[in-house]
């Protein structure tokens, strides 16, 4: 399946493309997507536990299963106000 990955804040500078289109195996999870990104894009290797992940407009847990055409967002801790 194909998903789109978008980056916010300083994560934009770590990504080679934004948004990035990624082909993943069926039933791939958020964790699988992060592993795939770390392997394929060395700059994104710094993505760690404090990375926040959203699928659409909701936060997603590492074990959440992705679906075709999902828009996945990666960003550092938020700082509104």
């Amino acid at each position: 399946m194909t998903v789109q990955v978008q980056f916010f804040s300083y994560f934009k500078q770590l990504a080679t493309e934004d948004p990035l289109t990624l082909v993943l195996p069926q039933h791939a999870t958020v964790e699988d997507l992060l592993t795939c990104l770390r392997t394929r894009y060395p700059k994104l290797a710094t993505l760690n536990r404090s990375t926040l992940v959203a699928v659409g407009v909701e936060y997603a847990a590492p074990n959440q299963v992705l679906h075709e055409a999902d828009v996945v967002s990666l960003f550092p801790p938020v700082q509104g106000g």
Partner: protein
Amino acid sequence: MTREIRLTSEQIVESSWIASRPILVDSGACVCFVGSVRGTEHGAPILGILYEAYDAMAQHQFHKILDQIESRWPIQSIRLVHRIGRVCAGQPSIVVEVTSTHRAEAFEACQFLIEEMKQRVPIWKQPLL
């Protein structure tokens, strides 16, 4: 509960903001919070802050927080405006207004909204040097 959530790249003019406050019957208490960009960060002077948001998600997360507030406190109205883009030091970056019949719940809900925003709403900042 009436609600308004706005992310804007335009300057927040407090007097217009107040003029547009909804007319509410029996609202005895209105708590406003105005957050402004400070001229220093970690002791060093800055010109301002550049705010970035994931707009659709920010709106959605704000509304989820308001849903929580609505289920917890008898609030009549909440309005919030948050700046996006460059905000000079001294300028307001956020204004929150919570209106209710009595003051205790307005204070609680206003603080809750700000705390939750800082945990969940996808907005980021970057100092302008």
